[in-house]
């Protein structure tokens, strides 16, 4: 009964109600769309930055993160990697050695990070195997083969088939040198990697840098970079076992936030700014609702007086007003979510691009189109907050009713 009442009341002033609903729809559409777009962007930032090379988790010596020295490495590394692979039942666990070396071609010399990788497993933890643009990726049996980043190869004036001299220092600090053949050139799209990284096979790396069955870190890729606790819990006992067996080995598991602190903070900074903007948007809508409902209450004071004379209590009338707001907000929510989702779904399939996007995406290693992410939370969180704030804004008109008495109310104009 009371619902019918509220419904009819709303349509007494069609234009006013539609305008208020429009305000809600406008903000809801914006909220739904922007939220989906942002989470899509964040996911791309995380995935693209981590998938290329650094992975979601890395097992390292405790000191390695701050001081990436070659001698801060993991002993008996292949057994440990095997154990982790079994525990996680995943192949996306691979061993890497890392050493800074001077690469010299016939005409140029450049410093680069030489990474020893396990081609069989690294193809699951890094996308570099898939972005070899010239030549081929490494194989497990390669000994004197190397693959280079695009910019590094260009700087060294090297193409596939050329030889390059590798000069560095081994684990003990003596000179490590080798002559290798370029078998492939990769283009990851990340200038920092394309300029600085060269990869050789792990066994060759270990012999060159005098680190038999040792490596600097084990990289792990999981199904979801935002839910790492499961994998962490599985790996923890393995680390405890090592710590008790060999007190010299102090291994820690670093998640991507520790490996690349910029990403999470960039997201946080962006969310902070966005929340502030959304808040102002919602605030303006709330003012609009508050004003509408205040007017609606004031102009019906006489009517309320009659209702109270007939036995209704102020609380009943308050409930009526609240119900009116809720109905309006619900219409706003349904329409807003529907329109917002329609836009989002369209972009989900077609992607969004705008002027200047190329420069942005290049900097943050993203594809040249953004695809919004669709989620129940993204679709309803914003609109529900709008609804909540609308009801909150109605508290003021409602509060005015509380003090109403039948006699006073009926005297009002």
């Amino acid at each position: 009964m009371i619902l019918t009442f509220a419904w009819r009341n709303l349509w007494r002033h069609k234009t006013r109600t539609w305008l208020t609903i429009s305000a809600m729809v406008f903000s809801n559409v914006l909220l739904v769309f922007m939220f989906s777009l942002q989470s899509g962007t964040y996911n791309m930032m995380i995935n693209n930055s981590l998938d290329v090379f650094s992975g979601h988790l890395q097992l390292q010596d405790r000191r390695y993160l701050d001081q990436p020295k070659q001698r801060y490495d993991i002993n008996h590394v292949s057994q440990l990697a095997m154990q982790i692979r079994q525990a996680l039942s995943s192949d996306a666990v691979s061993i890497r050695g890392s050493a800074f070396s001077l690469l010299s071609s016939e005409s140029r010399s450049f410093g680069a990070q030489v990474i020893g990788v396990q081609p069989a497993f690294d193809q699951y933890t890094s996308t570099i195997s898939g972005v070899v643009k010239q030549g081929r990726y490494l194989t497990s049996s390669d000994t004197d083969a190397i693959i280079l980043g695009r910019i590094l190869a260009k700087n060294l004036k090297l193409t596939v088939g050329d030889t390059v001299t590798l000069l560095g220092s081994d684990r003990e600090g003596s000179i490590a040198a080798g002559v290798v053949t370029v078998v492939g050139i990769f283009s990851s799209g990340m200038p920092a990697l394309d300029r600085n990284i060269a990869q050789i096979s792990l066994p060759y790396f270990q012999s060159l840098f005098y680190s038999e069955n040792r490596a600097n870190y084990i990289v792990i890729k999981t199904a979801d970079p935002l839910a790492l606790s499961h994998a962490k819990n599985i790996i923890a006992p393995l680390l405890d076992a090592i710590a008790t067996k060999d007190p010299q080995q102090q291994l820690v598991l670093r998640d991507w936030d520790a490996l690349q602190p910029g990403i999470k903070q960039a997201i946080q900074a962006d969310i902070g700014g966005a929340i502030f903007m959304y808040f102002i948007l919602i605030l303006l809508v709330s003012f609009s609702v508050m004003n509408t409902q205040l007017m609606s209450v004031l102009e019906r004071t006489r009517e309320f007086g009659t209702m109270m004379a007939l036995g209704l209590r102020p609380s009943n009338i308050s409930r009526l007003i609240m119900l009116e707001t809720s109905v309006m907000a619900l219409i706003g929510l349904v329409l807003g979510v529907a329109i917002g989702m329609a836009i989002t779904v369209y972009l989900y399939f077609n992607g969004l691009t705008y002027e200047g996007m190329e420069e942005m995406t290049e900097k943050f290693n993203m594809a040249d189109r953004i695809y919004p992410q669709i989620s129940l939370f993204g679709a309803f969180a914003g609109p529900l907050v709008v609804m909540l704030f609308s009801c909150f804004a109605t508290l003021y008109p409602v509060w005015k009713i509380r003090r109403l008495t039948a006699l006073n109310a009926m005297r009002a104009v």
Partner: protein
Amino acid sequence: MPLAAIGGFKLAWRNLWRNYRRTLIMLVAIVVAVWAMIFMTALMRGMTNDMVVSGLKALPGFVQVHHSAYRDDPSVVNSFAMPDAAFRKAMSALPVTDWAVRIKVPAVIASERDTRGVTLLGIDADKEQAFGFTKEQIIAGHYLAEPTAQEQDRKGIVIGQKLLEKLETKLGRRIVIMSQDPDNNLVDRGFIISGIYSSSIPGFEEHHVYADRQYIEKMLHIPNQISEISILGSNYHDVTALTAYVKSHAPISLETLNWLELDTYLSMMSKVMDSYALVWILVIFLALSFGLINTLMMAVFERIREIGLMRALGMRGTGIIKILLLESSMLLVLGLIIGNALSLLMLYLIRDGIDLSAVADGMAMFGYGAVLHAQFIFSDMLLANGVVITLGLLICLYPAWKASRYDPVVALNKY
């Protein structure tokens, strides 16, 4: 006429405060909207400005001159001869405010502990001050000696704090720099670390080491050759005149580019920000407009009888529109005044910047500094005010026009 005008003002003013709650709520909404427009735009502007300024420090300079192949292949091979007297003379006149030359080549730095790849910069200590690398950045030891100093005093090298830690070395210790000469011979030379600097640009101090240009010249076997010329002007916003001026004086074989062309990300960001400010102002206005139009509609609706009476007494439709528009403009202007005052006050309060060091790495990823400085631009305030008053009155025209068309007989008989 003046009397009538004053009367009209009074009428509109009183009408406005007849329902003071409604007017106040609307006023608060307008104030919040105006504040959000001006304050947020100033913050966004400040962020972009910080980003461009720090980007220009890393570059450095507004305009750079290189060997045409240098940007693709930043090697010692692509050096060019020191500018001649004519060019030097041209650079001492406006629009050029300052200029410097440097040698910039890839090199390898080795301490007794570790080896790293760096960019070796040969600079003139006296010239470099106006550019990215200044004496204030030195945290230990001293800056490079002036070119007039004795040669043995100019053999030092200044490296970043982070690089020092990575190399596990100290001030005063020896390091070896390896690079190539134009004939592809490996050249190496020992340097004493004479100074340590810090940089607010992330990653910068790990990859850039500074030494005396004339000394590096000798080491690399490139007498009187340089890698780049940097030129500063008075205003980074407008570099077209500066670029054209430098281009007309530099040898044709060299490549003259300004920062907009050198750093496309930076130039794109500053362009995007311009359109972003307008979009933000319009979105806020749209959110506000629904409430605005609603309030005015209600104000008209509850006065239908009154408006009918005025019409019956002979007031014309245009007169009704005038009174109602006067009312709306009073509301809008009042909101604008308070909103402007509030945003200016808040901008004054944060004039020293907002500390965002909690998310410093993230800000750095976008190229922003850890302390956010708002940048107030008068034209943004003008834009916000213009949008509110123009579009606001345009929106108010609808209820006013509706009111002016009421049939007095029908209106008087309502209720």
